[in-house]
């Protein structure tokens, strides 16, 4: 018997990749497929996926929900919920390509949504919290429906399979965006469910992650106090919620977030200049249970740009490179060279040192 994601905790090894154009110039998803292909060996065909930013310019003011359904009756049930809480601006099947490498696909639908004004008002929540709560509601109460992407002008595409096959399955080459992330998964178990593939996303935050965090249950039990429900038992899920909590709800910037989740060691902090030392001590103490330990390299995508971060001992590989306005982050350098053989600069960031890539005219 195979357990679904969420019924058992499954550690994974992985390949991650992220490319962003700081000037918001859009490029095709084709490059991502080509690049992730060379890291084939880092996955085992049990999960792959992509997140693209800037891919829905014509619907940029609406929340794009990507939803997996087990069957048509569940779709109907979920659409009743969506209809009740949102104005559905557009809905369609997500275009896919039939191919032998990708099997057992669920129904995959996309909705462009605006929160229903009176529902939103009576909920007394801000708009993004209303949307996040709706996602949790669907994912925890409508069995067989799973919202795996819910941001504006962005979308996640994922499946069980090798990432290059997943990319072709979703016709990723037909999308253009200014930022993409990609993930190839090497889980130690046999998940049979597409929702468990990565990236994991909530609102416009998406996370791809390579690692197995040893702080998992400490992090999970802490974040669940603040309105999140970890249903997948994966590291990526809990990291995404932590990022959402610290960035959206607590207003920390990504440098501050890095000093919570990959906090400098106390004996490093003590040598910081006074102001910086006080700040790092404060953040580390206040959010002690959100410190993430164990190996990880993550790429966080969001509306304002992209962030790459290693655990503080750098127990997973990750390199960063630049060429003009483009910044690349990858588990292996070879994947970057596939897209751009002639780089301006390439380096391996230190453990715990966040690489924050801002889009022009954006605060991060």
């Amino acid at each position, binding site marked *: 018997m195979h357990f679904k994601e969420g019924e058992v905790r499954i550690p994974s090894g992985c390949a991650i990749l992220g490319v962003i154009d700081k000037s918001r110039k859009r490029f095709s998803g084709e490059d991502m497929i080509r690049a992730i292909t060379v890291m084939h060996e880092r996955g085992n065909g049990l999960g792959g996926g992509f997140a693209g930013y800037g891919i829905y310019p014509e619907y940029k003011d609406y929340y794009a929900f990507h939803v997996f359904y087990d069957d048509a009756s569940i779709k109907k049930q979920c659409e009743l919920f969506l209809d009740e809480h949102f104005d559905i601006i557009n809905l369609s099947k997500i275009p896919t390509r039939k191919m032998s490498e990708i099997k057992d696909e669920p129904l995959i639908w996309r909705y462009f949504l605006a929160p229903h004004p009176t529902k939103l008002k009576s909920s007394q929540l801000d708009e993004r919290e209303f949307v996040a709560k709706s996602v949790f509601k669907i994912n925890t109460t409508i069995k067989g429906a799973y919202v795996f992407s819910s941001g504006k002008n962005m979308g996640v595409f994922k499946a069980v399979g090798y990432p290059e096959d997943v990319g072709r399955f979703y016709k990723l080459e037909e999308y253009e965006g200014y930022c993409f992330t990609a993930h190839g998964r090497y889980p130690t178990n046999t998940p049979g469910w597409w929702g468990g593939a990565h990236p994991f996303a909530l609102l416009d935050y998406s996370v791809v992650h390579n690692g197995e965090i040893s702080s998992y*249950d400490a992090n999970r039990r802490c974040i669940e106090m603040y309105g999140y429900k970890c249903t997948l038992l994966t590291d990526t899920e809990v990291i995404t919620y932590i990022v959402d909590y610290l960035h959206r709800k607590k207003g920390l910037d990504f440098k501050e977030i890095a000093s919570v989740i990959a906090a400098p060691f106390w004996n490093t902090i003590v040598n910081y200049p006074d102001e910086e030392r006080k700040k790092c001590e404060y953040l580390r103490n206040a959010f002690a249970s959100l410190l993430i330990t164990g190996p990880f390299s993550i790429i966080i995508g969001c509306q304002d740009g992209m962030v790459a971060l290693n655990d503080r001992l750098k127990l997973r590989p990750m390199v960063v490179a630049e060429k003009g306005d483009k910044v690349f982050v990858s588990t292996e350098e070879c994947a970057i060279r596939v897209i751009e053989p002639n780089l301006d600069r390439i380096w391996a960031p230190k453990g715990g040192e966040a690489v924050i890539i801002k889009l022009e005219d954006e605060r991060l």
Partner: protein
Amino acid sequence: MNYIYPEYEVVRNHSRCITCRACENQCANNVHSYVECENRMESNDDACVNCHRCVTICPTRALKIAKTDHVFRENANWTGKTINEIYKQAQSGGVLLSSMGNPENYPVYFDKILINASQVTNPSIDPLREPMETRVFLGSKSHDIVRDAAGKIVTETTPQLDLSIPVMFSAMSYGSISYNAHESLAKAAQKLGIYYNTGEGGLHEDFYKYSKNTIVQVASGRFGVHKDYLTAAAAIEIKMGQGAKPGIGGHLPGTKIIGDVSRTRMIPEGSDAISPAPHHDIYSIEDLRQLVFSLKEATDYKKPVIVKIAAVHNVTAIASGVVRSGADMIAIDGFRGGTGAAPTKIRDNVGIPIELALASVDKRLRDEGIRDKVSLIVGGSIRSSSDIVKAIALGADCVYIGSAALIAMGCHLCRNCQSGKCNWGIATQMPELVKRLNPAIAYQRLVNLISAWRHEIKEMMGGMGINSIESLKGNRLMLRGVGLNEKELSILGIYHAGE
């Protein structure tokens, strides 16, 4: 006629004994005596409490203590212990008294919990090569980020305790233990960067120099409480209960209220120090809030306030109420917690195991979203570094150790503290006994113990792939139960080994 046959016998190997009379000289219970005409030592087993002082001091290893093989007729219901207790009470008409923690054969959940380690998918970390952090802050944590006009984070917090390792010496009063024992604990706490606790006996004037590492206690008798005492401390603990004797107060007999003990407690020499069962200004939860804030007002909101409660059946609701009363920390004392003296039947039959209390309280406070408002300190009883790792993974911020600290100083757990004749100079006020405990040595032994535990904790954390103790707190996936039933596992919030 004395119905009680001695439980232990002093066994002397006369071929080794050199009649140096060290045993005679060292035994405050007068067990040993010298028979001059025969040039040999003799012992009175009736007086022996099995404290091992003579055994340890004997230069020729001529002594050992053996459990008597004298028995009652076998009876699964009426054990020898029960029969003897009846004899004692029929003789004295009094309450049975005992010391130290509950020795009865209840489950020790710590011994049925196993710790995880990394293999393959996640590297273990070598603490000899990589940083491994055990520092913790105790106090109320706020997630509210406040920024000044320039957008900088305001870093002021409510008062916190800063510990190099999440272990503290629990409350043991000056009076119940000796001056030298207190000095050893205070010095060790200072050296280790942790805290010790005065108990309810006040703070001796000589020990104000250790006040940065001192938690002062305010208990129902209010002994030794005055403004300087409160303002000197690093934190203030309101003692509502004690694991060894939940629901009852304390009684230090007038014979121990002499000299400095009397002055430190601020009561006349020779008067009994009676701590009432409840605080007579706290008959309900809202009264506790008033005391918490009275103490905070008195110390200008600069001292964190700990509320110490015994682990009783309703501990989760009580703890939740305590958080809402403004406490910065809750100390929960399990039913195996030690004591200088308690009615035996209360010590052995009242309260619940700390492992279950901790797991339930941690869960309840999380369910209510108030876990970060308070730090949880647990004691009663923490015996080793692995107990600490398990307690932290279940959800504790820190542990209190009492018995383990006394044992490090030389206590042999003979459980006769109430007699005041501690041959090891710990639980006594008799000057000739007190001086046997050398604070310079005892302090070093305490430092050694905690340093050794720190090494072990780091090795266990490294094995789990965790390099900061914050990431162990509440990390229950790192634990598995063995031989526990479904209900026990569900209360502890852990899976069974193999799952």
